[in-house]
């Protein structure tokens, strides 16, 4: 095996109340792609932030090419040849690609000002050498995320990074962009760079990495190579028990139309048309999946259907009644359940206890309210029952919702929304930021609702989620539904192309 370029020895990092890394060791070889696999909160990002000098470990040391180094800030990591592409891009939006790349490592000319021409030449040179196509004078905010990611990688290469840490790089990309990224990653390792690839997506890890390290709740729980691993074995390592990745699901038996949308258009916060002329129907007992790269109007579409956003034109009806201008309360009473994509903003109140969060949409009715006075006994009883039924792991029902883990918060939202009589479920990114164990549970709940005769509209940027749950798949691109497919016949490639706006070989 080739030389070890990076080694972390016995890293321990504590946060108040949490042991984020417990004596974790890890080594990276030259020219290797090492996947760091684990659920959200397993400690992957913490470990990488330690290696990049953003966190100071309580114990343990980092070695680069055999030498122990002191990492007090990212500057030290950069000097040691470590570059990191963060999950949330660290790019200054109104500046150009070139300015972002040189920031912090500017070339100053003889007149004391930045020698932008020289910098631009270096950027062009690097982008050609590594096949990272990008216009140095483009403004960041005008670029698609895939290109922004290239800028992040160039930023690291510009600083002569030998070791690249990519934190969840595929989370925001289309399947085509992911292929491009993998091509770039392979090109980098051929030129002697070494890569740590952080992910929780099993397929990708098996496809791209040379070696896989699995973490769970702050510990390193296993190490393997793709040839000896399967998705199932990796998932089991990640979660610590056997996991059913594919939710068992029978054939759909669609009934009457529950949600009917007629040429609906809506504007986003910047007043541009985000949803354009969308028509679709969801029947009782079926799951319609809406696939699409984030930011193609799904958020606004869901907001309109749940009464949170004004309609520009068009209409939609629930159980045959027009509800285009109905209030949220009216929709909820009409049998709508909404699992919002941003649970902190729309799904729950962090500073309220579980029990009160569980009656946010029913508090005004019997038995929770009698003559305008709340009945706390009934509210508590309801909470105890739902917490048990939906497997919300919590110290008690008076615990504040904000203190739960992401997965349990999401199960709390699901419990409230599904714990009553409903006709339509709109689930937006229902498993974002949720651990594998909870994903499994939430998926099975969604399928159970379908089998009970609820119409389900599932909006997700995760192709796997769409593929495994949907009965029909609609693909949204630039605010329009560009095609609707039968889930049993659709292929990943087909949907991937549609997500990129390519229909029948032609770009729309």
């Amino acid at each position, binding site marked *: 095996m080739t030389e070890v370029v990076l080694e972390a020895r016995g890293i321990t990092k504590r946060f108040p109340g949490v042991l984020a890394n417990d004596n974790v060791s890890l080594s990276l070889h030259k020219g290797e792609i090492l996947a760091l696999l684990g659920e959200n909160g397993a400690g992957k990002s913490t470990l990488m*932030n330690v290696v*990049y000098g*953003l*966190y100071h470990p309580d114990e343990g040391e980092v070695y680069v090419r055999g030498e122990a180094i002191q990492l007090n*800030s*990212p*500057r030290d990591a*950069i000097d040691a040849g470590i570059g*990191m592409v*963060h999950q949330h891009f*660290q*790019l*200054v*939006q*109104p*500046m150009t690609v070139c*300015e*972002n790349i*040189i*920031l*912090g*490592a*500017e070339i*100053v000319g003889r007149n*004391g*000002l*930045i020698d*932008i021409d020289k910098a631009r030449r270096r950027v062009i040179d690097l982008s050609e050498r590594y096949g990272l196509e990008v216009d140095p004078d483009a403004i960041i905010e005008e670029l698609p995320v895939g290109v922004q990611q290239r800028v992040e990688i160039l*930023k690291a290469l510009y*600083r002569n990074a030998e070791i690249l840490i990519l934190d969840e790089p595929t989370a925001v990309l289309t399947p085509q962009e992911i292929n491009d990224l993998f091509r770039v990653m392979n090109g980098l390792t051929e030129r002697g760079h070494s890569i740590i690839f952080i992910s929780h997506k099993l397929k990708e890890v098996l496809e791209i990495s040379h070696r896989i390290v699995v973490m769970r709740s702050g510990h390193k729980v296993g190490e393997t190579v793709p040839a000896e691993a399967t998705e199932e074995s990796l998932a089991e390592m990640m979660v610590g028990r056997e996991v059913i990745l594919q939710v068992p699901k029978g054939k759909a038996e669609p009934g009457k139309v529950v949600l009917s949308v007629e040429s609906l258009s809506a504007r986003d916060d910047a007043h541009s048309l985000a949803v354009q002329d969308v028509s679709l129907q969801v029947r009782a007992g079926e799951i319609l999946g809406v696939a699409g790269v984030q930011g193609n109007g799904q958020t606004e579409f869901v907001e309109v259907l749940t009464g949170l956003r004004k309609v520009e034109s068009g209409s939609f009806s629930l159980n045959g009644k027009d509800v285009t201008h109905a209030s949220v309360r009216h929709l909820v009473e009409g049998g709508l359940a909404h699992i919002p994509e941003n649970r902190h903003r729309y799904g729950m109140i962090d500073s309220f206890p579980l029990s009160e969060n569980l009656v946010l949409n029913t508090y005004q009715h019997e038995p929770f309210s009698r003559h305008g006075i709340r009945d706390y006994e009934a509210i508590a009883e309801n909470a105890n029952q739902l917490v048990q039924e939906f497997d919300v792991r919590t110290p008690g029902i008076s615990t504040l919702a904000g203190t739960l883990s992401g997965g349990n918060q999401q199960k709390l939202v699901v419990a409230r929304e599904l714990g009553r009589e409903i006709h339509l479920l709109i689930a937006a990114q229902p498993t974002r930021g949720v651990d594998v164990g909870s994903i499994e549970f939430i998926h099975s709940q969604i399928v159970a609702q379908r089998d009970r005769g609820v119409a389900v509209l599932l909006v997700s940027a995760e192709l796997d989620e769409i593929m495994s749950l949907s009965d029909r798949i609609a693909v949204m691109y630039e605010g329009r539904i560009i095609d609707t497919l039968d889930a049993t016949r659709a292929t990943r490639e087909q949907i991937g192309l549609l997500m990129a706006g390519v229909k029948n070989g032609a770009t729309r």
Partner: protein
Amino acid sequence: MSLHEQASTTLLKIARFTSKGSVIAVILMLVAIVVVNTTSLSEGWMSLFLDTSVLNFALRAAVPLALGAMCGILCERSGIINIGIEGMILAGAFGAFVVKISTASLPLWMSLILATVAGLASGALLGLLHALLCIRFKVNQIISGTAIVTLATGLTTFLFNPSWSSSGKFSQFAIPLLSKIPALGEVIFTNGPITFITLALVIFLQVMLFRSKWGLRTRAIGEHPRAADTVGINVNKRRYINTTLGGAVAGLAGAFLVLEAVGQFTEGMSSGRGYIALAVMIFGNWSPIGAFGAALLFGYMQGLLNSLLLAGVTTFPRQFLSMLPYVVTIAVLAGFVGKTRAPAAEGEVYETE
């Protein structure tokens, strides 16, 4: 590279960060000024609008506004909102005045220079205080700025003794050759030293902000401090430096009022200029040249108002006409605020985890 080539690339570079339209507009304005003042047009109604006395007044009124706006730009581009410009101007004026009267025994030029330095230092001190409150103690930046105005107003009123008076102020001087240009020479190239410094500072800051390492880093920490941090830039250190420098520039505006414009200190003599400077900064889209243009517009409105009144053109009540500059401020802000864009991270405390 020949001299000619060098000159043309320099021009190209200037053009790169100013729009073509505004360059043409400025040239047309300058030509109009020369023509109106040197031909028979100077007898007509147009002289009312472009007379050198109106323009001189406009520039004099614009100087403190432009300096105040540049204070705002320095702070806000790095992510610190500065509502306290008014207080910093006042403190600069008072500091300059106190040193001016206590060095009255020295030669006038020396006393004036010391007083200017005192103005800069007083402003810088308040800038540092603002930075300390906002960064170290995480005080809400609007509250901190308001507190600074209250502090400066209260303290200068309390310490000021109305019997103090100073004599002598900066005199105007003419730049050789350039001051011989008809009309323009009189307006632009014959002025007091702080006015010249302001003109130079506008250009210097514009170049620095958009072409230097310091400027790139300043803009980055005002937009996305974490991005700057991850490439090894010390965000809070830079915010301290910029806010302190900003305070010094506002202090210079105060020094201008005492040492070049009025010659005396009066209570509350900043009289709202710090707030108009904020409007000027926004109108100029957080760029020094833009802000200077906006400051000139406000100064011009005041100059025009004066000449209209003097000429007796209008019998409209004076009180209403005096509102003109402020009405323009509101109109301009209402019309432009949506189109300009503030630094994204301003007002936010930056903490490393």
